[in-house]
């Protein structure tokens, strides 16, 4: 019996009209559907369902809101791929494309949570950036050999001279002939070349004079170092063999570009200390000089130095026993060791000394000292090492801090996304796949962060390069391929290490742990992990804060030390008069003229000249006999008097010196003009208060004589004290007060150091312009070698402390930031986990404030454990830096208390947000979640 049934096909076709299928496919689908409906209808009839109902029931099979759309989607759309295909162990090709898919997927996931992306990238950047910069410093000082020099690790620094018992060194210059003699005996040393630095006045016909860093070198200098040339060549042997040398000069790439921006430099004429020299070559831009920290601008043949330095006519050439150099660079022969070279060198020098002729007599005491590896000046190596160690230590600490915080962030993220992961697992994603995803995310984040960190390092370089580090020279952060490699390695390491914990968590994630939030097993273990991380962060931050406060206080104390002078508004100027062939007499006259004209300028309060200024740390010494010793050594040999004498600091000054330095005249007066500029025995002296006490037991010593034993070419003599002035701290503020004696300016014709001092209420730049104007009126060819305000000089002396305070301050700030973020996340997570409990409590009558307290308990717990830990770490750590502190003990109570309170405040503040949110939760909503 054929039951009556509607024409299904037409109905189906009508409904499929909007699907847009190909006619052939549409026919197939219609056929399949029609069969289904027929079967259904027959079944229903067979079961005894009335016809009408059967039809209606059958028709219901077609019911769907957008039937055509569903069919279209299923037939036409590409297979959906939001869930990862659950296949494990794919073949290699698919593995690679799978990896790329993971990375793209991770990138998408990261973009969806910009907060996390920013926080994690910033954390990596801020912790790796300074570290990379610190490694850049180590690179500059130690790892990166002299740039532009071939194998500096096979070279050594050799100094000729004698060492005193106290460890100071007196150099002795070696003639070329003697050098050749020694060289002939050496097999372990392949080449020797000499170098010495000199300040040079450089001028062009068309440009104002400037002071540049010049080096006198032997002709073979560039060959021995393996320096390449951008233009021209180095020196030929014949250019450094005749007395006086040849007037040729090699320029550095930077100087050449600055002098001759529009054309080649080779062949041009420049004025070196007023003498015409021809440029024969320009070094490649990578070569910066033969000593780290002392960039070189130009090089001159060694034998030209007496000419260039304008020595008197009689001493224009070197004698048979001396030459231009005491400082040499040697290159080892292949296979030789530094020890062998050292031994051979000493033997060669001794052989010279054994010759028993007057010219080589000095080699019986003068010995070569070999320092392995060219690079830093030997005296600077210890300083450099300490400096680098400090920076690297800070960097390491920062990385640890950042790593802790990053781990925190990732764990939080994986817990939050646990549900998502759980469902994926349910649909077939393997644990391995999820681990790969997590890894991809971590690597992306750490990669981005490391890039940003490199940016931070580059910014640090831009900011700090060129600053002068006391004892070393010009600071530089050396960024090269080594640094990039380290940055990448750090990024990868950080990324992989950190994703380990959350990835394992993700892999182990079971539906049990995540879909049902009331289950605590998974969250409890992550909660413990996060709490420990927060405690560690807190402790480290506290330690850093204590350190920062100690250093900041040290700096403050140092700045506040009464130096005995009034620094404000005082500028100092030095002129390169030696380079202009100024005789000592001309120099003195120059200053006399200057001091006559400058005081009349508006805004200038006082002008003076002196050998030295305080704070810079340079000292001259004189011996002075206290009255008792003066009396007891009358008539005795001078050596006795010299030994019995007191060593005091000395300075030659013009009358207005004390006023310009803001010093007080306690008794008597300053020099008159008549007493100044007198050569020979000084007609009068002024002494510091402490010296007056030491010599005479009273500060009023006016009229008393000061006795000088024979020294400096003058016989033993007395000079009357005409004034007593306030004490001054010479050198670093942390040094004790020293005795100072002031002599009239211009007295010793051989003194080489002069400085102009100007006290003015006008801004330093205006003062400089004023001085420049007056100086060029007196001598247009004389450049200003250096001008600095006294405040700047003090800052330079305090540079190390400033770096300490800054570095630790920044670190502490960062540490706080990271700790705050960590605590915030921790408290937020714990609060979220306990939402149901809070809802119940609120429903049962708890006040919001009680909920806040409950949440804050976690924060307080972290403080309770973290603070003591941090304080102990701080106490231990501060012992390590005790020597760098001034005016404060490592265990200063105030600092520790302030730091702890600050930290506690930050922690509470960071927790308030989540706590308040927890207390505001609506119990009804919370209880309905499941």
């Amino acid at each position, binding site marked *: 019996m054929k039951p009556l049934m509607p024409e299904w096909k037409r109905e189906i076709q009508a409904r499929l009209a909007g699907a847009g299928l190909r006619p052939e496919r549409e026919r*197939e*689908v219609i056929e*399949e*559907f029609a*069969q*289904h*409906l027929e*079967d*259904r209808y027959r*079944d229903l009839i067979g079961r005894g369902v009335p016809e009408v109902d059967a039809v209606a029931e059958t028709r*219901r*099979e*077609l*019911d*769907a809101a957008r*039937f055509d759309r*569903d*069919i279209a*989607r*299923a*037939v036409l759309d*590409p*297979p*959906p791929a939001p869930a990862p295909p*659950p*296949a494990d162990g794919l073949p290699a090709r698919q593995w690679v494309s799978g990896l790329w898919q993971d990375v793209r997927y991770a990138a998408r996931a990261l973009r969806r949570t910009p907060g996390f992306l920013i926080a994690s990238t910033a954390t990596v950047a801020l912790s790796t950036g300074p570290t990379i910069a610190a490694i850049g410093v180590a690179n500059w000082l130690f790892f990166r050999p002299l740039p532009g020099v071939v194998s500096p690790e096979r070279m050594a620094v050799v100094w000729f001279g004698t060492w005193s018992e106290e460890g100071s060194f007196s150099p002795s210059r070696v003639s070329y002939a003697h050098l050749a003699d020694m060289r002939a005996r050496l097999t372990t040393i392949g080449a020797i070349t000499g170098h010495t630095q000199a300040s040079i006045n450089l001028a062009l016909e068309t440009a104002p004079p400037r002071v540049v860093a010049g080096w006198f070198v032997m002709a073979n200098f560039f060959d021995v170092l393996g320096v390449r040339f951008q233009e021209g060549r180095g020196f030929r042997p014949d250019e450094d063999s005749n007395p006086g040398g040849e007037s040729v000069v090699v320029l550095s790439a930077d100087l050449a570009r600055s002098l001759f921006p529009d054309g080649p430099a080779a062949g041009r004429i420049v004025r070196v200390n007023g003498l015409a020299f021809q440029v024969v070559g320009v070094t490649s831009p990578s070569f910066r000089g033969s000593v780290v920290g002392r960039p070189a601008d130009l090089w001159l043949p060694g034998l030209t130095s007496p000419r260039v330095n304008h020595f008197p006519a009689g001493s224009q050439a070197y004698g048979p026993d001396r030459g231009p150099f005491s400082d040499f660079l040697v290159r080892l022969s292949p296979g030789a060791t530094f020890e062998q070279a050292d031994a051979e060198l000493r033997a060669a020098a001794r052989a010279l000394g054994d010759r028993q002729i007057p010219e080589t007599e000095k080699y019986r005491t003068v010995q070569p000292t070999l320092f392995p590896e060219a690079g830093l000046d030997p005296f600077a190596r210890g300083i450099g090492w300490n400096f680098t160690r400090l920076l690297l230590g800070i960097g390491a600490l920062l990385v640890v801090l950042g790593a802790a915080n990053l781990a925190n962030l990732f764990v939080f993220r994986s817990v939050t996304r646990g*549900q998502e992961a759980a*469902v994926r*697992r*349910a*649909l*077939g994603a393997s644990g391995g796949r999820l681990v790969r995803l997590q890894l991809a995310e971590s690597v992306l984040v750490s990669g981005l962060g490391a890039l940003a960190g490199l940016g931070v390092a580059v910014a640090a370089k831009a900011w700090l390069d060129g600053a002068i580090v006391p004892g070393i020279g010009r600071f530089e952060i050396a960024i090269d391929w080594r640094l990039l490699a380290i940055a990448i390695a750090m990024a990868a390491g950080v990324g992989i290490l950190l994703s380990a914990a959350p990835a394992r968590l993700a892999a182990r994630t*079971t*539906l*049990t742990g995540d*879909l*049902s939030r*009331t*289950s*605590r*097993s998974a969250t409890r273990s992550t909660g413990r992990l996060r709490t420990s991380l927060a405690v560690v962060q807190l402790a480290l931050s506290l330690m850093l804060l204590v350190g920062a406060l100690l250093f900041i206080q040290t700096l403050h104390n140092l700045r506040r030390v009464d130096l005995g002078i009034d620094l404000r508004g005082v500028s100092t100027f030095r002129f390169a008069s030696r380079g202009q062939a100024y005789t000592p007499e001309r120099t003195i006259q120059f200053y006399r003229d200057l001091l006559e004209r400058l005081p009349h300028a508006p805004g200038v309060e006082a002008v003076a000249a002196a050998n030295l200024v305080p704070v810079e740390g340079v000292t001259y010494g004189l011996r002075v006999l206290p009255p008792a010793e003066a009396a007891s050594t009358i008539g005795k040999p001078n050596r006795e008097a010299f030994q019995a004498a007191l060593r005091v600091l000395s300075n030659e000054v013009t009358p207005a010196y004390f006023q310009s330095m803001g010093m007080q005249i306690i008794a008597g007066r300053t020099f008159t003009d008549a007493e100044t500029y007198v050569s020979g025995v000084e007609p009068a002296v002024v002494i510091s208060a402490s010296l007056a006490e030491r010599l005479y037991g009273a500060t009023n010593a006016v009229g008393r004589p000061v006795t000088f034993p024979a020294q400096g070419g003058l016989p033993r003599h007395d000079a009357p004290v005409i004034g007593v002035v306030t004490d001054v701290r010479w050198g670093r503020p942390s040094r004790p007060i020293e005795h100072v004696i002031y002599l009239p300016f211009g007295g010793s014709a051989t003194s080489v150091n002069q400085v102009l001092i100007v006290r003015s209420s006008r801004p330093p730049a205006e003062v400089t312009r004023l001085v420049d104007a007056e100086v060029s009126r007196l001598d247009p060819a004389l450049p200003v070698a250096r001008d600095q305000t006294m405040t700047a000089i003090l800052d330079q002396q305090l540079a190390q402390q400033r770096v300490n305070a800054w570095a630790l301050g920044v670190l502490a700030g960062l540490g706080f930031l990271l700790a705050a973020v960590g605590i915030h996340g921790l408290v937020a997570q714990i609060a979220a986990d306990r939402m149901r409990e809070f809802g119940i409590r609120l429903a049962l009558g708890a006040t919001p404030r009680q909920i806040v307290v409950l949440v804050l308990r976690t924060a307080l717990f972290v403080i309770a454990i973290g603070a003591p830990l941090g304080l102990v770490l701080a106490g231990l750590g501060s012992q390590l830096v005790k020597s760098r502190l001034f005016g404060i003990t490592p265990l200063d109570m105030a600092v520790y208390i302030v730091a702890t309170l600050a930290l506690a405040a930050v922690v509470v503040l960071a927790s308030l947000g989540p706590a308040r949110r927890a207390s505001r939760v609506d119990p009804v909503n919370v209880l309905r*979640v*499941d």
Partner: protein
Amino acid sequence: MAVTRDARELKKGSAELLILSLVEDRARHGYDIARLIEIRSRGELHFYAASLYPLLYRLERRGWIEGRWIEKTGLRRRRVYRITAQGRKVLAAHRRGWQAFVRAINRVTGLETT
């Protein structure tokens, strides 16, 4: 909102599981599959054609099942579906996930252990 998203995904997942398991041991056509679901679930589950076939076509496009027109002498041609090798892997994974899910539900609705 997270709850509804999961629910839809789970429903989809379970439907796929059902279909794959029904074509695991032998190939079947669409109505056969629908009927079996209704019988074996004792009427609890009923798949309308409008929902079933889009699902079948989707599984087919993913390569988990394979559809062919079969002609038997004397009868109209029918489209039958059988499981593929990849489909078998998917089925195994789905089964594992489903069992875990069921255990979880039981634990929650039953005694809460920890």
